[in-house]
């Protein structure tokens, strides 16, 4: 089945000018998103996940931020990087919805819920439906019901402080969904919620996606969440995608030492209790002056000489599974990478 490619990111580079110099937050990132699929971006804090996500909607402040010369983000065939603010406004909220990390601070405390959602539909711009007030309200009430909020007429008139954390995140999802977008970017939407609410929100996202066939880019540092929700995964490290593939590829055919490290640091109830959790030693690279070679080399237990000197290419492991690591080169020693999950997969 040939699916429609809705987002094509190529050689995306995004940097920030600061007093300390230029921070290269995202370096040569390329990926595609197809209609209706869920793609996870995983990685530790500061690896460029959020900057990647926000550059798709050009939400990073420019200046001090700026795109690299070769960067290209094509949404349904049209280039985003060169678009003006005015042109972006038609896409934001309508074609691409965004769910932010912290619902507590991402809603305006002095504005009623209904208006905050309805705002997305307002305005008389090219390419937008021109809805009347009553139509907007009707649509907002409908979307509130869809995200699992009861007593919508009452909630419509309430302020954010009158809602619980989970409820607020539902409102954020409603804001992202109300324009009927073909892509939703969710930037750690459950990080600030407790576990039971997190499960509900994930369930809701999955459910809504099935109903509307919206593609979702799901950013998280939680591999468990990825496993529940995503079709494909991209692992980011030091501003680069180090490994990408289907969930099965990444979990059972793990190839990058960093991904292995991530896997081994998940606490799991169903695996051998005698094995200690194994954290990844060291700290992420300094993005003011990123290393010449592989960004993970300094923390990698299998690092070879070449890893410090030359950035590895992407090696194809299987269809759609790519890994940026010199260990995949045919001249490299055969090292058996090991995670408990991989053992399980082989059993």
């Amino acid at each position, binding site marked *: 089945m040939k699916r429609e490619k809705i987002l094509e990111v190529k050689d995306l580079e995004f940097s920030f000018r600061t007093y300390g110099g230029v921070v290269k937050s995202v370096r040569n990132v390329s990926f595609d998103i197809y209609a209706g699929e869920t793609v996870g971006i995983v990685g530790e804090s500061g690896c460029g996940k959020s900057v990647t996500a926000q550059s798709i909607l050009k939400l990073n402040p420019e200046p001090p931020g700026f795109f690299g010369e070769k960067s290209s983000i094509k949404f349904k065939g049209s280039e985003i990087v060169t678009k003006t*603010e005015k042109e972006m406004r*038609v896409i934001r909220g*309508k074609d691409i919805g965004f769910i932010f990390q912290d619902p507590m601070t991402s809603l305006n405390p*002095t*504005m009623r819920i209904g208006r905050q959602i309805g*705002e*997305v539909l307002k*305005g008389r711009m090219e390419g937008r439906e021109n809805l009347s007030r009553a139509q907007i309200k009707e649509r907002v009430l409908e979307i509130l019901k869809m995200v699992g909020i009861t007593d919508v007429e009452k909630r419509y008139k309430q*302020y954010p402080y009158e809602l619980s954390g989970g409820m607020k995140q539902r409102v954020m999802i409603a804001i992202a969904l109300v324009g009927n977008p073909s892509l939703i970017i969710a930037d750690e939407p459950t990080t600030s919620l407790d576990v039971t609410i997190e499960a509900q929100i994930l369930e809701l996202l999955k459910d809504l996606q099935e109903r509307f066939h919206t593609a979702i880019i799901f950013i998280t540092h939680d591999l468990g969440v990825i496993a529940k929700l995503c079709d494909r995964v991209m692992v980011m490290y030091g501003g680069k995608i180090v490994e990408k593939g289907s969930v099965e590829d990444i979990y059972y055919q793990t190839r990058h030492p960093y991904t292995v490290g991530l896997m081994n640091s998940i606490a799991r109830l169903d695996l051998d209790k005698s094995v200690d959790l194994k954290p990844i030693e060291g700290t992420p690279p300094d993005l003011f002056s990123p290393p010449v070679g592989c960004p993970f080399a300094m923390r990698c237990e299998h690092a070879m000489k070449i890893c410090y000197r030359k950035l590895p290419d992407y090696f194809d492991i299987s269809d759609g599974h790519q890994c940026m690591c010199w260990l995949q080169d045919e001249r490299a020693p055969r090292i058996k990478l090991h995670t408990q999950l991989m053992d399980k997969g082989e059993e």
Partner: protein
Amino acid sequence: MAKYILKRVLISIVTLWVLVTVVFILVRCMPGEPFQGEKMTPEIKANLEAYYGFDKSLPEQYIMYVRNLLSGDFGYSMKYLNQSVNKIIAQSFPYSFDLGIRAIVFSVSFGIIFGIIAALNRGKKLDYLCVVIAILGTSIPDFIMGAILQYLFGIKWGLLPVAQYLGFRYTILPAVGVGFYTLAMVSRLMRASMLEVVQQDYIKTAKAKGLSKAEIVCSHQIRNAITPVVTVLGPVVASILCGTFVIESIFAIPGMGKYYVESVQNLDYSLVLGMTVFYGSFLILSNLVVDILYGVIDPRIRLQESR
């Protein structure tokens, strides 16, 4: 909300009572007495003192005063012949009130506008201009500001009258003189508040919704930035009322300021007390209004109070 207002009113009454008592005692602690040094026979002086109740003990005088006060009677002035304090206040207060309101409207509205302009043009020329105005405003005392305004607009350029209070043109210079400090303060506060709000996550949410810069500023940024400004309105009213004292004398305006200063110098007990109580209740009332207003602007306050 009703319960909250009731509570605030009760607290206000207690505050007022403390004010009356303290001022009553303080006035009588001042050296000298009202009829000292005036040429009169001991009999006349005794008569006068009996008339004003000074022959009675202090607690008796206090009880008498409070009883009169409760029926709204401030008593008679001891210097202005046959003038009740109520009458003096009724004559002079409208001028002070009018000047004060004009000064508040001028300073708060322009302060907010300057603050917004400065924040939206951060680091540019307009921002620096607003900062310069703010520094001038906070560092020049009002009596000098009044004199400068009189010199420039009244004498040098001959644009506006420098004294009296006879119509709109007469009110401009005194209102600017009184309000300039507040304008500077409000604009600095508004600027800082705007710059803080623009960093908030919900501004980014608004941007991700596809709203225009103008929509974000008007419906998200300003509304949230204005709350800290509302909280300082109480003290602002106080500072403007004090400012009117000085400006009134510079611009020869027949307001309360003139009587207030004279009454202290003359040891006019009843006038000092009457004006203090009047000012005090006015300030307490304006603080109450500000508190209620704050609840209207920030819905979160409403909830906390009603719980």
